């Protein structure tokens, strides 16, 4: 009975440690998810609130300048002069905005249709946060799930130990059946030890 109690304490202690580690990992997974989400939202906000509207205005000025200059090419006299004034005013606006958003002038972000690849700009802005990209809360959660499952199996391995305790108690109460009960108790303990070892080995 004392051996059974000791074995139960050992397996139970190991299960408690595993269970605690699993809880820690679940908590870590939540913290990682929050950290990653905060970084992602902030980066999206930076691009779509701080940069993209200015880039759009810069490219808008570029388009207007282009169209006015093109129309001036087909006009003459006062009309032509007015169109060129409009084109130059938009050029000046574009130059002024480019000081605030250099990306708008970067050919790497221009699409074949003359547009702007905001997705590529967002990808580049994330490139300097490789540590945040590497965070994988799902993997941490799965590690917690595995440890928790192992803890559950370890606790289940105490059931044969409890049966061994029962056989020991019965052997104490019924001395004439002592031999058979002790054999059964020893067998139950052996099963518990084998189960615990198997759980550890397959973890």
């Amino acid at each position, binding site marked *: 009975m004392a051996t059974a109690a000791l074995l139960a304490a050992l397996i139970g202690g190991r299960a408690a440690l595993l269970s605690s580690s699993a809880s820690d990992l679940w908590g870590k997974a*939540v913290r990682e998810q929050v950290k990653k989400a905060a970084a992602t939202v902030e980066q999206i906000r930076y691009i779509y609130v701080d940069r993209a509207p200015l880039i759009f205005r810069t490219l808008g000025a570029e388009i207007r300048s282009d169209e006015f200059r093109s129309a001036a090419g087909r006009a003459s006299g006062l009309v032509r002069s007015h*169109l060129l004034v409009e084109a130059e005013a938009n050029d000046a606006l574009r130059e002024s905005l480019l000081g605030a958003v250099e990306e708008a002038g970067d050919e790497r972000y221009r699409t074949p249709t003359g547009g702007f690849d905001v997705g590529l700009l967002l990808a580049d802005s994330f490139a300097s946060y490789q540590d945040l990209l590497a965070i994988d809360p799902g993997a941490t959660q799965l590690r917690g799930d595995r440890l928790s499952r192992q803890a559950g199996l370890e606790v289940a391995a105490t059931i044969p130990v409890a049966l061994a305790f029962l056989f020991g108690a019965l052997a104490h109460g019924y001395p004439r059946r002592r031999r058979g009960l002790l054999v059964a108790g020893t067998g139950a303990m052996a099963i518990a030890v084998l189960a615990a070892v198997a759980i550890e080995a397959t973890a």
Partner: protein
Amino acid sequence: MDADSVGEVEGRSPFDRRLAVLLGIAAVVASLLATAQVGFDRQAGQASSRATRLATRLFEGLTGTGLLTSFQFGSLLQANEGALASSARQVASFDHPDVAEVELAIGKASETASLRALKLAGEMGSAPAASTGLDPHTLSVLTRTTRQLQADVAEQGALVDRAQRFSARSDRVVFALSLLAISGVLLGLAAVMKEGQPGRVSLWSAAAILVLSVLVGGSAFLV
């Protein structure tokens, strides 16, 4: 020969044998309850963690798509305003023949520019493609559809319900284990007091509480 007299022949009183049997049963019940408690606790912890993570992902998706949509509407509105202003300029120029030629030319060029700006707004405001090299996580945040967000809301609610159910079960089993501990203490008391009225009262009280512990533990599966 009945069981009691066998025990007496073997040198063990019925009191001792009952005490031994109850101790053994208490040990088995304890291991079963502990296994159930760890299992329920695992289900509750797992569901709670997933629910919290999903809530975070949900807010991330709502905020991310909201920012993208806000930019999309803002830029489309800006381009549309330009198109409307240029059309209005061309219409108004007919009432002012002295500047009509100039205003008409500016209006037409401005209108063409606004149409190009509209196309640009549509392109810049659409969700990024995978070919941009954007990491899968950010890509999934920006491309979440309303249907996906609604599915996440439903799943998150189900996970919270699951966490609460298993937490209630775990609490019930902890109560059963507490009763079992009281039963164990009474069994110890009975062992110390030996036979006699106080010992027997302790023994039967321990037995009654042990049965109650089993019933409470079993009822956890019905929560």
